[in-house]
């Protein structure tokens, strides 16, 4: 209540929504997928997740301590980054992989650019790509005690049959957090119901991706192929949790649709024509880079201002 009675300049009406609130809900929404990952891959997955969260939080804390800045660990954004990063790693990763990834995500991608709100790309994805380029062997080793086959997407690319039901439930090899479509959608529903994310980006992302697959996938309107492409890899996790990152997605409504379609097409290109079977993380990172451009061209017109006048203003 006292928060709502502050004497200050406008705005006078404040909601109780804060960064830490939102980030906490994102963490809660990520838990089903993370929990399924732990159930699916065992104790290794839990250790990876804990290490990656610890390394992001500690990096942020130490950086701010050393530079005498305000400690912002309490806003949970580092926890979200760490959790997302851990969910993007295979459970077979050695212990130092999430640690290096966490340090890179926070130190280089987030803090050196000015901290939360200033980073131009998603820290978790930036770190994932950093690790993927640096340690490709560790990052694509999905062989565990339970799973010895290739990931369904790789199998699909090789032209083999895959079980779509298993992919939707999540009983497949892959990174810790991406396997279960159901768990991710449950988490996404929580966020959508709370109004933390909306369907603009994930919707346009997935729809444009499906259209791309139908047109260029080489299988036409094959239901099994399309649903396997949807459920496989990091598409769901990326569309609902990483493409919708507040800092690195456009703020305008029109921009969100453009961004989503751009991501869908890029992912399709990477998956269909690329060498690797997966392309979500690179697609979102490239999408992050064009966000300022999208925002520049989709600034909504203020009520009552005619476009001609605006042009003249720009010239002057």
């Amino acid at each position, binding site marked *: 209540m006292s928060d709502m009675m502050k004497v200050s300049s406008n705005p006078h009406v404040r909601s109780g929504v804060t960064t830490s609130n939102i980030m906490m809900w994102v963490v809660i929404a990520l838990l089903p997928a993370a929990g399924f990952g732990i159930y699916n891959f065992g104790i290794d997955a839990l250790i990876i997740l804990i290490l990656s969260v610890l390394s992001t939080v500690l990096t942020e804390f130490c950086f701010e301590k050393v530079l005498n800045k305000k400690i912002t660990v309490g806003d949970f954004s580092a926890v979200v980054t760490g959790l997302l990063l851990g969910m993007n790693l295979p459970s077979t990763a050695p212990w*130092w992989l999430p640690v290096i990834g966490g340090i890179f995500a926070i130190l*280089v991608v987030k803090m050196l650019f000015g901290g939360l709100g200033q980073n131009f790309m998603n820290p978790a994805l930036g770190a994932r790509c*950093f690790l993927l*380029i*640096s*340690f490709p062997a*560790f990052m694509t080793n999905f062989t565990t005690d339970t799973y010895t086959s290739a990931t369904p997407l790789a199998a699909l690319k090789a032209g083999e049959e895959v079980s779509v039901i298993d992919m939707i439930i999540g009983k497949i090899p892959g990174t810790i957090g991406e396997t279960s479509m159901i768990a991710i959608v449950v988490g996404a529903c929580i966020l959508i119901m709370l109004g933390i994310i909306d369907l603009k980006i994930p919707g346009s992302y997935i729809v444009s991706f499906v259209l791309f697959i139908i047109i260029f996938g080489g299988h036409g309107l094959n239901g099994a192929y399309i649903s396997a492409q949807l459920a496989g890899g990091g598409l769901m996790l990326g569309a609902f949790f990483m493409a919708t990152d507040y800092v690195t997605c456009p703020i305008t409504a029109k921009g969100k649709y453009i961004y989503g379609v751009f991501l869908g097409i890029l992912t399709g290109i990477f998956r269909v024509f690329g060498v690797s079977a997966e392309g979500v993380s690179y697609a979102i990172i490239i999408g992050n880079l064009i966000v300022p451009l999208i925002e520049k061209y989709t600034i909504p017109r203020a009520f009552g201002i005619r476009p001609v006048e605006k042009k003249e203003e720009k010239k002057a």
Partner: protein
Amino acid sequence: MSEENKGALGFKQDTPAERFLNGLIVENPTLVLMIGMCPTLAVTTSAINGVTMGLATTFVLALSNAVISLLRKVIPDTVRIPAFIVVIASFVTLVQLVMQAYVPVMYAALGVYIPLIVVNCIIFGRAEAYASKHNVVPSFFDGIGMGLGFTCAITVIGLFRELIGGGTMFDVQIFGEGSVVPGPVGYFFSLYQPIRIFIQQAGAFIVLAVLIAIMNQVKFNMEKKGKDTSKFGVGGCCSDVEIKDPKKVKEELLAKEKAAKLEAKPETIKPGDIKAPEKEKVLSGFEQIKATTAQANTNASIKEVVTPGEEDKK
């Protein structure tokens, strides 16, 4: 390092020693002026590449600076760039042939970047900004200082990229499997997994950014201590622009305005109006429609001639 800086700033202008330190530290082409980024980012995958590239560039830079300085009164101003290219290209060819004959391994490793020294911004920048205006001896030492500054910077970049990205230092395995370090320390080192991204292009940007940040911090600390750092970062290619005094610019503009008025006056007396819009077009680059409308009032047209120029200068 700080003592050297003091010396570089305290030395008499245009002496060999001052030029040398100026290129090495105060106006380091890579870390302060930030020119010649193409070889800096492209060939620094290992320290030895950096050294070779830097020394080749230093050789070309010093000798081309000296020759251009000798020829500075002979070269006509209008064709100076082609003339510089001829001088620089002959030295680059020399370097290229010598390297091909005696160090074929490095020649193969550096590949296209050796001939590309011809268009290196540092060499052009020094030729244009320094050698073409100063005597032979300071120009020669300016080239050596700049070249060694470049060499040091890209060697350090190469060293870090090689060490982090491959675990080697001048091709000797320090970290990672097969480490030459003996004993338990060596065992510890051999566990290191090279971070491959540093060998790739993205790593060059990361290492370069960190080095520039360190250089800026050094400069910042010096400013804090009250040392004169006004020379830091000023000069090189940009010296002509930076030094320009706002008062001088204004005077020049006023002179231009006067000249324009003098030129415009006889034209207004002439009855044939065909020539006026043409003149307008050349001077201001405005659309012809605007020029023809402005034709009626010569005073207005002069104003329009001057204002865009002013904006450019600002």
